[in-house]
């Protein structure tokens, strides 16, 4: 017994090393476990607060440029809107129905504005942290977009912060997108390297489109509404098995200077899911004929 204690006392630092390495290994391989990872990820309150202060200081220095950009876009969009309204009114002789339709569309989606407090571009799996959490109505699997285009999907939330999986994430990001005006759809995947380029996979071979067409979200998932901009087609390849096309897309969102984003929460999704479940239940429980 005394020999054992003497041995432990002499080689204590080896045992401590082993214990600490095992703890690190457990952290490393268990990260995908939901509850424990919230504690250690940047969604934790302390890390989030420090990043929020830092982001506040940094964003202050880019306010002037952001203001100028917004004013220009506002001006352009207002002009376009006025022109479209006039055209629609001329065509249908009805000037009030367009306003009603716009309001209806906005009612369906509730937008939660948020600011990015932490962002990475260089890893294979990048994550973005925003300063809104479950207390502000943000939940897992909600879509996140910015003024320029799509950003990603919410992965984890704590009460005041949330972690978003952006498009720039090799293992987890698959966003369903369609070619504007043509309707053909595939899914968006990023393979690392250039943060402004991603690829749309599985576009059918009978699809007709050309270089320079815009790609936007298809609306076939409950995460993004139809029409959120993704990017522009730059080059067209064949897929690895030759059965479909693979499009190289230049992303419209600038992930390098992301500051203001908004989270899209769709009220009608839960109603859709409930309806689907009711149908499935009624089919399985109906008496056999």
């Amino acid at each position: 017994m005394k020999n054992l204690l003497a041995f432990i006392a002499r080689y204590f630092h080896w045992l401590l090393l082993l214990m600490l390495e095992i703890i690190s290994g457990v952290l490393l391989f268990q990260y995908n476990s939901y509850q424990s990872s919230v504690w250690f990820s940047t969604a934790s309150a302390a890390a989030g607060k420090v990043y929020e202060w830092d982001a506040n200081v940094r964003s202050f220095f880019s306010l002037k440029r952001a203001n100028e950009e917004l004013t220009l876009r506002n001006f352009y969009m207002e002009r376009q809107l006025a022109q479209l309204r006039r055209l629609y009114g001329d065509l249908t002789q009805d000037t009030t129905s367009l306003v009603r339709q716009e309001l209806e569309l906005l009612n369906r989606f509730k937008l939660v504005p948020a600011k990015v407090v932490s962002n990475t571009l260089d890893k294979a799996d990048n994550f973005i942290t925003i300063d809104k959490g479950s207390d502000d109505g943000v939940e897992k699997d909600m879509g996140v977009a910015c003024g320029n285009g799509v950003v990603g999907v919410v992965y984890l939330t704590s009460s005041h912060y949330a972690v978003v999986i952006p498009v720039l994430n090799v293992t987890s990001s698959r966003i369903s997108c369609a070619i504007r005006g043509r309707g053909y759809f595939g899914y968006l995947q990023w393979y690392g390297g250039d943060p402004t380029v991603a690829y749309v996979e599985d576009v059918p071979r009978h699809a007709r489109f050309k270089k320079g067409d815009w790609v936007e979200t298809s609306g076939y998932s409950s995460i993004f509404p139809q029409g959120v901009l993704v990017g522009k087609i730059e080059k067209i390849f064949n897929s690895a098995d030759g059965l479909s096309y693979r499009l190289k897309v230049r992303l419209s969102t600038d992930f390098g200077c992301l500051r203001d984003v908004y989270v899209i929460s769709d009220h009608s999704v839960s109603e859709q899911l409930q309806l689907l479940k009711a149908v499935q239940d009624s089919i399985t429980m109906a008496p056999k004929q």
Partner: protein
Amino acid sequence: MLIDTLTRLLTFIALLLAQVLVFNHIHLFGCATILLYVYLVVMFPRNYPRWAILLWSFAMGLSVDVFSNTPGMAAASLTLVGFIQPYLLELFIPREAPENMRSAMATLGVTKFLLLATILVFVNCLLFFSIEAFTLFHWQQWLLNIGGSTLLTLTLLMAIEKVRK
């Protein structure tokens, strides 16, 4: 003893904040990142209790992980570097040195300190990028990462060491 611990705690916090607020965003040539928090381990004096070195390294690695969304990576690599630091320092210390000699360029001389720092920085970068490459990275990128980060971190470390008295 208390003063020493407090000074070390201050260095810990300064290195942590510098790493997560400034150095985490610096990537040169698409491969080199600065991992300056190894500096804490390089600075441990001779005969500092081994278990204390391990705990300091683990705490530093874990704190950097919490802020960088890299669970366990920095903790694992830095703890191992903290383990080998006392053995390495013993190799470089001149024979008639005092018991609690501190590890600095002023006491060890430029070449010896440079060699000590290079080995510790290299081992840390090697372990960190190897654990990170468990994901889908190519081996050429892995080697570039290790080489570039070692050089960059070492340059910054030697520059700061020159300023220290």
